[in-house]
C-alpha cells in the first residue's frame, strides 16, 4: 500500500519507564522473599548440622570423591543429553527420598505394628480383595447388588468373623473366627522377617509388577513382580552378612531398592535408553560411599552434627545431647496416616459431589464460600473444635492418635476439597461430553473418565495439604497431646506426640541454652526434611500430570 513516495524517517519511541520500574520492583520482592527464607534455613541448618566442626580433610576427601566427579560427569552427561541428566538426578533423588521412607516404614514395622498382627491383617485384606476382583471379572454374569453384598460379606468375615462386632453387643458369642484372628492363633508362626518380608515383598512385587507390565507387557510384569517378591525375602537372609538385621533389610529392599531399581531399569534399558543417566547416578552414589569409606580409614572426623543416628532413634531426655526425636517422628507418621485415611475419602468425595453432581443453587454457592473461608480459619480454632467435639462431646481420651488425626484431618479438609475440585475442574469438558455422548451415566463418567484424569492432581493437592498438617502445633496443644512421650504409640487410642510439638516443648518447657542450640535446630531440620520428601513426591506427580495433560 505504502508507495515509495512517502518514506518513513523514524518510527519514534514508546516509553517503557513504568514497565521497567514495575519489573525491578517485583524482582526485588521475589529476591527479598527468597533471600530471607534461605538465610533462615542456612541459620537453622548451621546450628543443627554444625558443618564447621568437620575436619578440613573430611571436606577435601568428599570434594575429591563426590563433588568433583559429580560436577564433571554431570556436565558431560548434560552436554550429551539433558534428558539423561534429568533421569540420573531423579534416580538419586528417588534413592534419597525412598531411604527416608524406608526409615518411616521400618519404624512402623519394628516398633508399632507387631509382625504377626500386620501379617494376619494383610492376608485378611488380600484374600477378600482377590475374591472381589475375581467377582468383578465375571461382572457380566453377576448382578451389581449381589456382587456388592458378596464383597462386603467376604471382607466382614475375613476381618471380623461371624457374628463379629454386630453380634457382641447383643451377647451372641463369636461362632466363626475372623481370618485375621485365625491366623494369629495358629500355634506355629513363621519368624518375624518371613512375615514382614511376605507382606512388604507382596506389596512391592505387586507395585513393581504392575509398573513393569505398564511399560512392557503382562508377562514381563509377572516375572518382575515375582523377582521383586523373591528379592525381598532373599534380602532377609543376605542382610545379616552385611550387618543388617533381617527385618530392616527386607524393609530396605522393598521400600528403597525395588523402586530405585525399577526406575533405573526403565530409564536405562527400555526404549528411553538413557544409560548415561544411570552412570551419573552411579558416580554420585559411589562417590558418597567411597568418600565415607575413605574418611573413616583416613581418620577424618565429620561434622559433629546434632542430627545423627542417636537423635533419630532415641526419645526425649533431660540433657540436650541425649535428647532424641524418635517417638515424635513415629507419632507424626501415625498422625499423617490417620489424617490421610480420614481426609482423603471425605475430601475427594465432597469435591466430586460439588463439581459433578451439585446443582448450581444458593445452597451450593453458600457451601462454596464457606469451604473457602474454612481453609483460612486459624488452626488453633480447629484444635478447639477437635477438643470440643471429639474429647468433650464424644468422650474420647484427649491427646490420642485418633483424636489428633481427626482434628488435623478437619483442618486440612477444606484444602483437600479445594485442590481436588481444582483437579476435577481441569479435566477437559470434551472428555465429559464424549463420555455422556456414549451413553454413560454420571457415575460411569466420574469413575471411568474424571477420577482417573484428575487423580494425580488430587493426590498432589492432598500431599501438599498433609505437608501443612505435619507442621501444625496449635491443634495438637489444644487437644492436649502430651509434649513428651517416651515410646511410640501402638494403637489408635495411645497418646501421641509429634515433631513440631516436641520442638515446641524443647523451646518452651525445657528452654535452656543447650536445647535452644542443639535439639531445637536438629528437630526443625528433621521436620523440614520430612516435609521436603513429601513435597518432592507431590512435585514429581504434578510434573507427570502436566506432561501428560
Amino acid at each position: 500500500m505504502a508507495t515509495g513516495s512517502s518514506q518513513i524517517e523514524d518510527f519514534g519511541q514508546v516509553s517503557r519507564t513504568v514497565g521497567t520500574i514495575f519489573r525491578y520492583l517485583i524482582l526485588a520482592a521475589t529476591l527479598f522473599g527468597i533471600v530471607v527464607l534461605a538465610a533462615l534455613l542456612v541459620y537453622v541448618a548451621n546450628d543443627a548440622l554444625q558443618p564447621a566442626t568437620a575436619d578440613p580433610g573430611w571436606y577435601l576427601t568428599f570434594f575429591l570423591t563426590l563433588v568433583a566427579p559429580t560436577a564433571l560427569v554431570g556436565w558431560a552427561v548434560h552436554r550429551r543429553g539433558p534428558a539423561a541428566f534429568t533421569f540420573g538426578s531423579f534416580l538419586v533423588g528417588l534413592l534419597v527420598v525412598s531411604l527416608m521412607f524406608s526409615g518411616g516404614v521400618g519404624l512402623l514395622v519394628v516398633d508399632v505394628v507387631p509382625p504377626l498382627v500386620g501379617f494376619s491383617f494383610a492376608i485378611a485384606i488380600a484374600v477378600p480383595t482377590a475374591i472381589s476382583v475375581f467377582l468383578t471379572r465375571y461382572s457380566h454374569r453377576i448382578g451389581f447388588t449381589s456382587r456388592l453384598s458378596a464383597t462386603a460379606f467376604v471382607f466382614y468375615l475375613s476381618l471380623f468373623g461371624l457374628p463379629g462386632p454386630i453380634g457382641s453387643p447383643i451377647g451372641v458369642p463369636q461362632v466363626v473366627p475372623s481370618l485375621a484372628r485365625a491366623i494369629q492363633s495358629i500355634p506355629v508362626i513363621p519368624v518375624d522377617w518371613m512375615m514382614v518380608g511376605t507382606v512388604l515383598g507382596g506389596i512391592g512385587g505387586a507395585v513393581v509388577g504392575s509398573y513393569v507390565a505398564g511399560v512392557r507387557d503382562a508377562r514381563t510384569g509377572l516375572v518382575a513382580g515375582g523377582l521383586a517378591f523373591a528379592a525381598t525375602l532373599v534380602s532377609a537372609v543376605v542382610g545379616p552378612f552385611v550387618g543388617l538385621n533381617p527385618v530392616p533389610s527386607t524393609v530396605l529392599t522393598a521400600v528403597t531398592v525395588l523402586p530405585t531399581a525399577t526406575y533405573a531399569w526403565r530409564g536405562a534399558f527400555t526404549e528411553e535408553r538413557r544409560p548415561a543417566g544411570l552412570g551419573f547416578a552411579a558416580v554420585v552414589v559411589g562417590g558418597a560411599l567411597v568418600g565415607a569409606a575413605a574418611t573413616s580409614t583416613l581418620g577424618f572426623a565429620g561434622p559433629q552434627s546434632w542430627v545423627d543416628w542417636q537423635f533419630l532413634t532415641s526419645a526425649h531426655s533431660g540433657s540436650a545431647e541425649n535428647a532424641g526425636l524418635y517417638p515424635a517422628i513415629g507419632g507424626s507418621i501415625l498422625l499423617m496416616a490417620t489424617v490421610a485415611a480420614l481426609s482423603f475419602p471425605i475430601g475427594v468425595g465432597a469435591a466430586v459431589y460439588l463439581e459433578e453432581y451439585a446443582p448450581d443453587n444458593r445452597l451450593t454457592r453458600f457451601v462454596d464460600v464457606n469451604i473457602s473461608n474454612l481453609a483460612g480459619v486459624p488452626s488453633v480454632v480447629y484444635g478447639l473444635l477437635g477438643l470440643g467435639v471429639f474429647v468433650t462431646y464424644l468422650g474420647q481420651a484427649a491427646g490420642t492418635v485418633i483424636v489428633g488425626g481427626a482434628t488435623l484431618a478437619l483442618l486440612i479438609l477444606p484444602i483437600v476439597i479445594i485442590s481436588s475440585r481444582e483437579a476435577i475442574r481441569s479435566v477437559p469438558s470434551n472428555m465429559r461430553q464424549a463420555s455422556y455422548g456414549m451413553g454413560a451415566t454420571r457415575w460411569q463418567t466420574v469413575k471411568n473418565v474424571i477420577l482417573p484424569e484428575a487423580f494425580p492432581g488430587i493426590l498432589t493437592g492432598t500431599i501438599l495439604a498433609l505437608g501443612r498438617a505435619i507442621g501444625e502445633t496449635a491443634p495438637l496443644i489444644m487437644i492436649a497431646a502430651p509434649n513428651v512421650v517416651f515410646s511410640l504409640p501402638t494403637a489408635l487410642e495411645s497418646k501421641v506426640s509429634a515433631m513440631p510439638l516436641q520442638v515446641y516443648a524443647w523451646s518452651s518447657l525445657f528452654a535452656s541454652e543447650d536445647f535452644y542450640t542443639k535439639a531445637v535446630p536438629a528437630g526443625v531440620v528433621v521436620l523440614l526434611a520430612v516435609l521436603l520428601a513429601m513435597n518432592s513426591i507431590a512435585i514429581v506427580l504434578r510434573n507427570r500430570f502436566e506432561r501428560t495433560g
Partner: protein
Amino acid sequence: MSQQNTDEQTTSEQDAGDGGSPDPTDDEMLIQTDVSESVDETSGTRRRETVVRAEHVDVWYDDNQALSDITMEIPEQSVTAMVGPSGCGKSTFLRCINRMNDLIDSARVEGDLYLRGKNVYDDDVDPVALRRRVGMVFQKPNPFPKSIYDNVTYGLEIQDKGGDYDEIVERSLKRAALWDEVNDQLDESGLELSGGQQQRLCIARAIAPDPEVLLMDEPASALDPVATSQIEDLIEELARDYTVVIVTHNMQQAARISDQTAVFLTGGELVEFDDTQKIFENPESQRVEDYITGKFG
C-alpha cells in the same frame, strides 16, 4: 442393520415406521422398526423409512431462542447434512436428537422429536438409554486418555455388553478405516495418534456399540485436508449401515457427501430441507441461494 438391535426387537413394529403415537405401555424405551428393508423391486431403490422426525422443535438458552419451529424428517441409511452460518442452531438441533442439551442447565426444548416413532422428550425416556442408541462424534477429536483398545470398547463397557471385544474392536476400527494404521499399537494411548486418526478413533468408538443414528458435529473442521477427505470417504461408507446426521460449515463437503441437506439460517430457522442436489442446483428460497453461492453468511 445391526445384530444387537434385531435381538431387541419389540412386538409393536407397526407403530414404528410410520412414526405413529408411541405406546406408553411399551416397556422398551424406544420402539424398534423392522430392519429388513422393503425394496421397491421395479425401480431398485429402497423406500427409506424415517428415523428422526422433528415436529415444531423450539430451543431456548435462557431467553434466547436458538431454534424456532423446526420440522423435518431424516430418512435412514443416508447422510443428512446441516449447513448454515455460525450460531444458526444447527449444532443445537443435532444435540436435541440425543438430548445432550439436557446437560446444559439453561437449555430448554419444546416440541416433539421422534426417534423411530418414539418421542425422545417423553417423560419415560431415559436420556442415558437414548444416547446409547445414538452415537455422537464431536467437532474436536476427544479420545479418552486410555489405550486405543479401551477407547473403542468404552461404549460396550459402560453398557455392560458381553461379546467378543477383540472382534468388535477389529470390526469397528476397520469400519473407521483405522485398523491398518493402529492394529499393532492397540495398547498405546489414543492421545498419541494424529488428529485425523484421533477423529477416526472417535468414530470407531461411536459405532462400536452399534447405534442406530450417528450424529457428527463438524467432525472434520479441526482436521487438515487429507484427514478431512479420509473422514468424508468414511462417512459415505458408514451411511450404508447407519443413519448419519452431520453438521458442517463447509458447503462443498455437504454437497460431496450428503443425500439430503438442511439449510439453517440466522435466527434458528430451518429455511429449506431437500435432496442435496436440489438444494445446491435449484433452491427454492432466495436466501438459501444467496447463502450457498456465498453472497452472505
